[in-house]
């Protein structure tokens, strides 16, 4: 049964689903952003587990380390990029949240969208 061997991946999938659920269902936009970060973390976790090899060591060639025992360095390199991207998205999203809060005085998505519907109705009349 491969599923039992791949328990790290299962953890990543569960985290991913929790994050997606938070993004879709939660009404507070800060919580939505936290959900987004959970999704990102799940993917990072998946990548890093992907690089693991049985009894692996860090991929640094110091002191005669055996290359065949080293974990896969590519996912780690990719995830460094992924983390920077995640930080950037979070920074942008938080600055949007700051502006939204200044203008609407609320962080509740339902309020934001209700205002939108009312404004549209006013514009239509």
């Amino acid at each position: 049964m491969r599923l039992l061997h791949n328990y790290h991946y299962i953890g990543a999938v569960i985290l991913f689903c929790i994050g997606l659920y938070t993004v879709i269902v939660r009404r507070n936009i800060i919580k939505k952003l936290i959900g987004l970060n959970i999704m990102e973390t799940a993917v990072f976790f998946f990548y890093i587990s992907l690089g693991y090899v049985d009894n692996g060591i860090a991929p640094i060639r110091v002191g005669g380390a055996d290359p065949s025992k080293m974990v896969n360095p590519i996912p780690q390199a990719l995830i460094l990029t992924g983390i920077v991207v995640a930080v950037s998205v979070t920074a942008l999203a938080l600055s949007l949240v700051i502006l939204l809060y200044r203008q609407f005085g609320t962080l509740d998505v339902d309020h934001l969208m209700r205002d939108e519907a009312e404004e549209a109705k006013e514009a239509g009349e």
Partner: protein
Amino acid sequence: MGAYRHFPVLMITIPMLGAVLLPFLGYLRKRWVATATLLPLAVSAVLGLLLIGRIPADGYLSYELGSWPPPFGIEIRVDYLGLFMMLIVCGISLLALVFSMRYIEREVEGPKLTAFYVLFLLLSAAMLGFTATGDIFNLFVFMEILALSSYALVAVAGNRNAVRAAFKYLLMGAPSSIMVLLAIGFLYSVTGSLNMADLSTRIAESSYSEVLIVAYILFVIGFGVKAALFPMHMWLPDAHSIAPSPVSAMLSGLLVEVSAFAIIRVTFSVFGSGAENLIGGTVDALGIFAAAAVLFGGIMAIIQKDLKMMIAYSTISHIGYIFLGITAFTAEGLAGAMYHVLDHGLAKACLFLCAGSFIYVKGYRRIDDLKGAWRQMPWTCFAFAVASISVIGVPPTAGFISKWYLILGNIEAGNYFYVFVLLSGSILAAVYCFRVIYYMFFQPPKEGAWESRTNEASPSMLAPIWILSFGTLFFGVFSYLLIPSLLKAAAFLL
């Protein structure tokens, strides 16, 4: 090998360098920023024009970054379709930029202007890099630059609606990017490679078909959100109608097309040669969604009251056209899709810039207010009419050529239902476009709405509009310049 092999990478990195240097210039000499933004894009466009004829229709230019051979380093691979796409990006970005030099001061506050131009350059550079890259993770990196700068460009006006539309866009866009990242991880886990050409050979040999199918589905969802394919289009009408008009032109005329081009890349360059039977089911489903998009976008465009909202829904409809060309899986269909990218880019950018001119001169956004607009703005109205005709697909314009090949491709593939959908999409387009044209030219204006003498926007805003609308006519009449090579390139890709 001459020096021209360096051109693609310079085309991508010079606008990025420009973007990075621009804040410094903005700190020293604020007035020069707008002009300085033109320079790197113009250099890219010139380099792109010099590449014409160097890349054969059934070949590609491969460039190994850092001199590492492909599966080890990153490869830039520009084929004929890629160069075609890069030139469209350069051209339309330049025109939208020229337009925004006068326009944008109305919508964006002074201190944010430098940031606006930086983001504009980054958006163009990212689209170029996104199109040219031959490495799937590099595709993700450029997609993120693209996505981030487009979120901020929607919000740049800073009013309530703009920020809300941008946040909605971000809440759909960011999870879709994560799905693309997950899909890349899935592909990597069963192939061990990130280079597209290498991936396609490894996929053909791979025995992990479940993983590959789901990776493809995740790619389609991820890029589909960015391209606003029908069930994932919710962000587009708000974002495209509320953003400043030159930004709308960029988003609607380029960004959604570039995302669709990414699906072409993934479908044909990564999965195509070895795994057609694996992705067949997903491609069929994609066709159904695309057909729904054509009809849904058309019907929603008809009932809109706001001009930019109508153009935005029309974009949803036209993305459906491009996807119907992809899912036909024939050379005619793919060539039609690529020609539609050109035609739709020119026409949509023109329509949005015209809408921007109406907003700039009179502040009118509603279609009702355009009654009798030709008395005051005949040139803008005329360009709007030409671009609308191209959107409908009437013969002398490029829209006709692209729809012709889309229909040919679908007939060859035996999808007669989609042929019917394509034709009804044109009828819907005729309804929503002719309504606006009728209001503009044949209705008396409301009391005091329009002056009876000509009073247009400034020439620097009118010129891009006219170049774009002339472009739709030019590529309609002289389609034989491009179509044979596109057919050959499409056949090469299949």
